């Protein structure tokens, strides 16, 4: 197929951007959930 490299690169890089973004949301959510647990414990101890 003519220009196969360009087509492959466009689709690969494009989908990689969406996938990495989706993973980054999951990673950030996990970090925030951990922080919420930590803060809940410290607020609970302070009461």
């Amino acid at each position, binding site marked *: 197929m003519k220009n196969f490299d*360009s087509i492959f690169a*466009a689709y690969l890089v494009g989908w990689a951007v969406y996938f990495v973004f989706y993973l980054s949301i999951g990673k950030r959510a996990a970090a*925030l959930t951990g922080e919420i647990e930590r803060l809940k414990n410290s607020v609970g101890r302070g009461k």
Partner: protein
Amino acid sequence: MSKRAILGLLTLCLVVASAYASFYVAPLERTMGPIQKIFYFHAASAWAGMTAFMVCFVANLLYVWRRQVKWDWLGVSCAEVGLVFTTVVLITGPIWAKPVWGIWWTWDWRLTSTFVMWLLYVSFLLLRTLVEEPDRRALFSALFGIFAFLDVPLVYFSIRWWRTQHPQPVVLGGTGSGLEPTMRKVFFFTVLAMHALMALLIAERYLLEKLRGGVDELKREAEAQ
């Protein structure tokens, strides 16, 4: 299976089906040949990105009017997702341009206004990191978001108002423009799939912002003790 997982799976099916349709259902374009297949992914991503910015604009207006934190969460979620879609547009565009135009990039109205739009929404997200106090941060970013949106119609109309290296509109372009009927159907199917992906990413990003709101609240509670 949770509702989120089902929606995610449906979106994945739509996206895979649209990619299949782009390669195996849509006919080969006569002048450009197979490289034109990038069009379905590139243009559909651009439409989805601009829709995200439009929702961001509405959320920003609603925040300024109502001062409800949910509109701030929606605004930042849409700005980030719109930025991701525009990033894909700015990557796939030059990859398509090089074999067709012989150059990666040119500073014509469409390309420049799209790049400016990308920079404006990067600034929108950076601005949020500079303000600590949540209410001030929400108000400043809503006002900046309203300003940033001014560039979005310019991106859309640039190929209608000025002569550009970028092709003139082939969809909703008026007389003398248009796509072959099967290409048109495949294009709108891809637009639907990319909008489903956009909605899914915004929903996930919104939940993240909601978590961040919970962290801010707990931090305030901890500081008050």
